């Protein structure tokens, strides 16, 4: 019973809040964003904040995450003098075009966007939706508020985020790195809406890093839409590295046109509660979609990866490899849905989820779901939940390698399969290093920042 009451209370709280700040939300925003707000909010109210009763959130109850008295950031705040000063993530030799999103707001001032090639746009969504609404209406249509309450909430509250456009045939030789920085003097709920469009034959490597300062409760609810035109190539890396009081809900929607290739890597190195929704629609023949995920959890951390691939056209390949290392009382979940529609013949769809439990208290839920309406397809899925291979451990120890180090080698080996797929070499090396640190029990954080004992 208490759950129901809490549910009503929480929804009422956010309903009341929406009414209270409605004017602020509409103010300064483009029509294209404002037109959706009320409807999306109604949808959010109908669906409510998800509990385990919601089929798609079966393994993640978001209620506790929404309980704190959050402050929102509904307008661009005075920008910090220099975000690059606050953020010193040392990814050595990672020669990227660096941009910042600060509490959900794109920071033009701190971003090095003037050096981008001709025609490439990296700007604030607020700006672009006012100045170039045609760009948005052309592509933005993937995230449906009625299918997910968190998308609905995002659509109702979102005012900014980044907008990235790579025009036809442009190949970015430098990766773009976007730092999502959260910093506040109180508990903060951050809404961020991003659009990425990579046109026909264009090529993009994008790295998103989540980062939070100060020991507050943070809740980040972001929605990112990615459009890959025909023959486009996109590598999308998300590096999630937050403290234990942070909840991250990331929903990424990807549409692929024919002959395109999109690879996503989701590396969850640290965070209190992480929910990643990753939904692909392969909307042209000959597409390739690769989805990799690795997470390392300890204490009471929770990570839930929810993927969906819709094979809407024939001759496409999708490949998912998700791995979790769970220590202490951490909990993890993986749900992977593959839907092959009737005419999508010659589909190849693979999915694998491997999990390493380091303690008896850690738990992992894994749920594959295949919906196959075509007859000439190759699909496979597999999941394992296991401990470290004792035979292998003994072999290493019998050569003089002590137990802790041998375990570390084994855990690194487990993660290696996913990490080796990272094509951005300095990033791969950096993640290797972070993973090693993480597994040693040191914080996988940039050396400049420290959260103290709570992490």
């Amino acid at each position: 019973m208490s759950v129901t009451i809490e549910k009503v209370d929480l929804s009422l709280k956010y309903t009341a809040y929406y009414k209270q700040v409605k004017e602020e939300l509409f103010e300064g925003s483009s029509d294209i964003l404002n037109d959706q707000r009320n409807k999306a909010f109604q949808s959010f109210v109908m669906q409510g904040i998800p509990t385990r009763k919601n089929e798609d959130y079966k393994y993640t109850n978001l209620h506790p995450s929404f309980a704190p008295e959050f402050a929102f950031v509904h307008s661009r705040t005075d920008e910090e003098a220099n975000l690059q000063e606050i953020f010193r993530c040392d990814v050595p030799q990672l020669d990227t075009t660096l941009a910042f999103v600060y509490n959900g707001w794109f920071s033009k001032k701190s971003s090095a966007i003037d050096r981008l090639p001709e025609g490439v746009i990296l700007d604030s969504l607020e700006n672009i939706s006012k100045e170039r609404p045609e760009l948005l209406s052309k592509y933005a249509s993937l995230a449906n508020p009625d299918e997910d309450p968190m998308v609905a909430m995002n659509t109702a509250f979102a005012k900014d985020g980044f907008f990235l456009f790579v025009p036809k045939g442009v190949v970015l030789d430098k990766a773009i790195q976007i730092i999502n920085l959260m910093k506040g003097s109180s508990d903060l709920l951050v809404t961020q809406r991003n659009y990425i469009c990579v046109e026909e034959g264009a090529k993009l490597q994008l790295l998103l890093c989540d980062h939070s300062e100060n020991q507050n409760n943070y809740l980040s609810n972001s929605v990112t839409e990615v459009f890959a035109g025909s023959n486009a190539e996109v590598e999308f890396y998300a590096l999630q590295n937050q403290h234990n009081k942070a909840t991250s809900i990331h929903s990424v929607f990807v549409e692929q046109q024919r002959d395109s290739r999109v690879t996503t890597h989701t590396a969850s190195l640290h965070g209190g509660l992480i929910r990643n929704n990753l939904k692909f629609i392969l909307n042209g023949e000959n597409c390739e979609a690769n989805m990799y995920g690795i997470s390392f959890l300890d204490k009471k951390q929770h990570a839930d990866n929810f993927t969906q691939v819709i094979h809407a056209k024939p001759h496409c390949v999708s490949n998912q490899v998700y791995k979790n290392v769970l220590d202490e009382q951490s909990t993890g979940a993986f749900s992977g849905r593959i839907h092959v529609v009737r005419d999508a013949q010659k589909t190849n769809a693979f999915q694998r989820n491997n999990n390493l439990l380091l303690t008896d208290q850690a738990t992992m839920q894994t749920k594959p779901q295949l919906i196959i309406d075509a007859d000439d397809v190759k699909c496979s899925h597999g999941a394992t939940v296991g401990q470290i291979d004792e035979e292998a451990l003994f072999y290493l120890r019998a050569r003089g390698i002590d137990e802790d180090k041998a375990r570390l080698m084994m855990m690194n080996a487990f993660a290696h399969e996913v990490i080796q797929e990272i094509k951005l070499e300095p990033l791969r090396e950096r993640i290797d290093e972070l993973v090693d640190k993480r597994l040693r029990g040191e914080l996988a954080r940039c050396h400049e920042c420290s959260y103290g004992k709570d992490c």
Partner: protein
Amino acid sequence: MLSIKDLYVSVEGMEILKGINLEVKPGEVHAIMGPNGSGKSTLANVLAGKEEYEVTSGSVLFDGEDLLDKAPEDRAKDGLFLSFQYPVEIPGVPMVNFLKSAVNEHRKHKGEKELTAGEFLKLMREKMDMVDMHPNLTNRSVNEGFSGGEKKKNEIFQMALLEPRLAILDETDSGLDIDALKTVANGVNALRSPERSAIVVTHYQRLLDYIVPDFVHILYKGKIVKTAGKELALELEEKGYDWIKTEN
């Protein structure tokens, strides 16, 4: 060097070794032969420190110290080496990292300076030549996709790198072609010295032509039922184990 006294060992409540006594002195080579399932690998694994084997009574001293008390890694660093009958594949752990860690752990233990990457590679190449190992193998994960013979060579390669004082070879000769057998034997013989000893578990007299033992023991149903010189191996080759089985 190694002194096993009245050793009883069980696995999952089943008694496998039933009172083993064995003395290995510095410089000696002991061969252990015996029918399948008699407990040879069990003995080897217990000496290396595998935890699933329960020592119910008896003692093992290595250099006068209680061996059974020590962790597997400490036994290894003290100079005990087991060449596994079935080396395990460890996908994702690169050979080079593994070997370098092993060598440097040994060096640290002896109070020597750790090898740099360059120094290690040089040492590795030298030993690889010695056991005629294909250089490509060190670019892979530990034993991953190695053929049966390559796995065995890899064991001897590791032995050559770690230079143990007591090497226990559990059927290292099985699955090797004639040339490889000689190479492996050469690898073992290269380590022979008045301070180093070996226990060679084998089913075939052939290996003992190359690694000439001082003693041959027959292990049967968890006990050493016969000990003699190298001529015992020849006798077994001729007569098989039937006479041992009827006597015991």
